[in-house]
């Protein structure tokens, strides 16, 4: 089973963008024996350049304020036990956003055993510029959009997807919901 998290910090501003990009560009993604970073529509070698290129798109459409970034985290289960498989899956999953958004995805490795018995080793951070480079419309984390993305992930991985969302409220607190919401693949794949 894949865990699919949607994280949004509406009030984080520019500082949140910088911190988030620094976090996902840290050395963990580069210690896998190959480049665990890929970008769409932004520079993939420099954090500052990627940030600058996202801001240019936002400025063009006059939408610099508002959600600075939206982050999707895709945690694979223990069956995805190889960085190359995790990378190939992430590359396919991120294509869902190609048509409208600039994004950066990074693969991280973090072994952990949860109470549920899941052993998620590889997880991907997919960070998008919520302002579309096509027409400037903001990405909406509506249930329809989140479910559509989760269904797409279920189709790519062939396993069930559990959705979790964490949105920052106006008073700065994180509000999590949709816990234990599952999307099942139309065509399950046994790994």
């Amino acid at each position, binding site marked *: 089973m894949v865990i699919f998290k949607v994280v949004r910090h509406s009030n984080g501003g520019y500082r949140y963008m910088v911190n988030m990009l620094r976090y996902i560009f840290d050395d963990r993604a580069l210690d896998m024996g190959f480049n665990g970073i890929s970008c769409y529509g932004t520079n993939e070698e420099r954090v500052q350049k990627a940030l600058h290129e996202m801001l240019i798109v936002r400025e063009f459409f006059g939408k*610099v*304020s508002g959600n600075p970034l939206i982050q999707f985290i895709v945690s694979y289960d223990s069956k995805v036990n190889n960085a190359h498989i995790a990378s190939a899956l992430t590359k396919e999953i991120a294509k869902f956003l190609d048509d409208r958004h*600039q994004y950066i995805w990074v693969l991280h490795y973090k072994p952990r055993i949860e109470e549920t018995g899941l052993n998620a080793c590889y997880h991907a951070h997919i960070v998008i510029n919520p302002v579309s480079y096509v027409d400037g419309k903001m990405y909406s984390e509506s249930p329809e959009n989140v479910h559509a993305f989760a269904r797409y992930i279920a189709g790519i991985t062939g396993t069930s997807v559990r959705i979790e969302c964490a949105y920052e409220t106006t008073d700065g607190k994180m509000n999590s919901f949709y816990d234990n919401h599952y999307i099942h693949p139309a065509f399950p794949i046994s790994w």
Partner: protein
Amino acid sequence: MRDKSEKKPVTKSVRLTLEEAQMIQRKARDAGLKESDYIRHKLIDSGEIATPKEKVLLQNIMNSAYTALVKAGASEEEIRAFEREAGEIW
């Protein structure tokens, strides 16, 4: 929530012939932009070489070229020169 400074309270009206109006409509559609965004882009960002959509596509080509350069064993100097040129897109 959109910041107050990003609101656009001013409307400018311009008289156009039917042909001119159709031409703007067609060009905006070809660029994948709304007419207002297209007109703003042409008048205010006239020094810009491309729309965001075109820049994103160019950047993706540059990213592929960068990967190919690195794989081909290009020198540090060649890579830096390439990066400088690629930076011109934005």
